């Protein structure tokens, strides 16, 4: 048992930490937000140069060949910087789907374009009624000769506004909530019948509402006709990545608040000298360390092929992240007082991103219900 990083992982961590420290100061982020699309094309190019866009892909296709620990390292740094680029959508979600459901031919065609920064992807699954149920799909895919015709609407598609191509779930067979019969399709945004409306999310990132009316997908765009198991695994891995990102965000909120407590003076002394705030700061630290532990646990378990064990671990991690994140975020704003309420100061932005992370792929309560149904973490014969 050891928690040490390998030499290669340490180098990756150093370089991505440096990138965030150099390029993602609060003022710089504000600047990127005003650029076309709401993020920085230039940084996207730097991610490509550093190999970050190829992180999870096999080396034979020009990828980095990284696993969940490498993802954890990168996402934690990104969480500190609150990065705006479509990394989670393209590399983690869509990249994961290509890895787990894409054919060799499709990966061969797409991965080199992703790693070089030329292709951005998104994953469209949410519908008005489906909430956190990935198998609740009413968008239809009707077979027509060798192709499929898609009809339906997808909601809150992360970075769906800038994606060149979108991976879409659509029902090929079965009732709306059946586990079987969910297909996964790759749709080019230029296809007739594909329309979208982009908008910002609470965290300053972007999403889109997507409408599909009579969108025709050829045979090479059909990734899977029974995609739910692969999708669930990818989403579990994506949750592990979000947990790591959240830890970075929580760390910054904790550090920023601690610095503030050491410098802000009221009643003639630093507010950090007040015991009531000291104890609250300690509770933030405990919440942070508990979250960090669970993000590590999630990273280790994300690749587990046993879906039940994996699900338990990922659900547990998301619960801890949700609880810790909400606690740290609310306390960070409270201890800062007025300045924490403003868009002019960083803490509020971290708090907003943290809040969105809790809503993504199941909030703490949703995962608690899942974990409870699965009988918890510790067996009777523990």
């Amino acid at each position, binding site marked *: *048992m050891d928690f*040490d990083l390998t030499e290669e992982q340490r180098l990756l961590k150093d370089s991505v930490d440096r990138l965030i420290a150099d390029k993602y100061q609060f003022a710089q982020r504000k600047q990127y937000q005003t650029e076309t699309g709401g993020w920085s094309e230039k940084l996207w190019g730097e991610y490509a140069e550093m190999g970050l866009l190829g992180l999870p892909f096999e080396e034979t296709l020009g990828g980095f060949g990284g696993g969940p620990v490498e993802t954890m390292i990168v996402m934690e740094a990104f969480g500190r910087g609150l990065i705006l680029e479509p990394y989670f959508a393209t590399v983690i979600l869509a990249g994961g789907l290509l890895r787990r459901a894409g054919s060799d031919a499709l990966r061969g065609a797409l991965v080199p374009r992703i790693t070089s920064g030329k292709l951005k992807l998104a994953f469209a699954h949410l519908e008005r009624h489906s909430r956190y149920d990935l198998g609740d799909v009413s968008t239809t895919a009707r077979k027509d000769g060798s192709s499929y015709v898609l009809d339906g609407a997808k909601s809150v598609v992360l970075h769906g506004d800038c994606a060149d191509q979108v991976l879409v779930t659509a029902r090929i067979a079965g009732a709306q909530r059946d586990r079987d019969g969910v297909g996964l399709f790759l749709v080019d945004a230029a296809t007739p019948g594909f329309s979208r409306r982009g908008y910002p999310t609470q965290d300053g990132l972007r999403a889109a509402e997507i409408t599909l009316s009579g969108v025709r997908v050829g045979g090479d765009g059909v990734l899977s006709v029974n995609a739910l198991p692969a999708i669930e695994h990818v989403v579990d891995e994506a949750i592990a990545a979000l947990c790591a990102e959240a830890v970075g965000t929580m760390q910054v909120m904790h550090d920023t608040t601690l610095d503030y407590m050491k410098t802000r003076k009221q009643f003639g002394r630093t507010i950090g000298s007040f015991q009531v705030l000291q104890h609250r700061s300690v509770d933030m630290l405990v919440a942070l360390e508990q979250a960090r532990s669970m993000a590590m646990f999630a990273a280790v378990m994300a690749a587990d092929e046993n879906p039940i064990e994996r699900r338990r671990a990922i659900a547990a991690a998301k619960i801890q992240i949700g609880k810790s994140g909400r606690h740290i975020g609310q306390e960070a704003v409270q201890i800062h007082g007025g300045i924490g309420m403003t868009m002019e100061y960083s803490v509020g932005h971290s708090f907003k991103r943290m809040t969105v992370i809790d809503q993504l792929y199941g909030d703490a309560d949703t995962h*608690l219900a899942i974990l409870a149904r699965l*009988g918890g*973490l510790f067996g009777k014969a*523990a």
Partner: protein
Amino acid sequence: MDLSFTDEELAFRDEARRFFRTQIPDSIRAKVAEGEGLTKDDMVTSQRIMNQHGWATVNWPVAWGGKDWSPVQVYLYQDEMQLAHAPSPIAFNVSMVGPVIAQFASDELKRRFLPATASAEIFWCQGFSEPGSGSDLASLRTRAERKGDKYVVNGQKIWTTLAQYADWIFCLVRTDTAAKQQEGISFLLIDMKTPGITVRPIVTIDGGREVNEVFFDNVEVPAENLVGQENKGWDYAKFLLGNERTGIARVGMSKAKVARIKELAALEMSGGRPLIADPRFQEKLASIEVELKALEMTQLRVVADERKMEKGKQNPASSLLKLKGSVIQQQLTELLMEVVGPYAMPYQRDFDGRNEPAIGPEYASEAAPMYFNYRKVSIYGGSNEIQRNIISKAILGL
């Protein structure tokens, strides 16, 4: 990053599992599982078995019967002990006074006390707290005046756990009233049979007699019973209090409690179905399990860090473990009481001795007492508020 144990570590875990489950008598382990109090005989028996195996004093220097185990081995040893419901070695002997004697006392005292402490021929109790000195321990007033080759001790200790079993007491006493509070304290070993010592029991809210008051009225103690140097007792006390680094979170014990709760909740009916099938109950338990899993990982991280730390140096993260671990232990006793529902109500202490049938299921009788009793874990060993002060200063720099 690799969170699996090595083959050697796994083999060690199996050895520990086998040892605790086959060598510690079932009757004793059943009492621990049910939260029933152990008799002195139970504690001494268990301690002797461990000591014969060389496993009672693993935290001591090797020369005095300790083990040069890796932090992971120590972790596994404790985890398996707790999962097996085996009693921990007598804390006063093994985690508290033993290491202090081994570290600071003269060779003469080491030879005199360490073997008998390891084998529990001497049962120790701890004389630290006083009525006016709880969290502010350094304000203690029990006086030890040097007169020739003796100290004469006057004063009072309180919350003295298991003083009624103890052969000896290790005490913090004031030897210099003029010096700064922390600099006038000495660490003295006192035979409980010495004239002038009175023990008065204190019954706690669980109905048990665990703690006592100990009064000292002109108690004469040979000067050679002083540990280390006069007026250096505070340093030894700090060493003692910070000593129990791993295992303080009691993760293994809490895991065993979760298993027990699941077992009993499957037997208890609620609304026509087993309580364990109630989603509200499931979620409540799962929520604690998540914090426990996180704590287990946090503890492993601390254990892994310790390998890189200078031996004997204290890790402030252990305060964090105590803080979270105590709360989880308390939440689980709370839940266990809720499991037995109305049968938490009857007060059934000492029923066994009276040969009367239990009211309700036998496992129910200890649920409420354990809940009441466990309120102590966030108070003793430096209250959770004190732990927060420590973290605030040592880790956060506030």
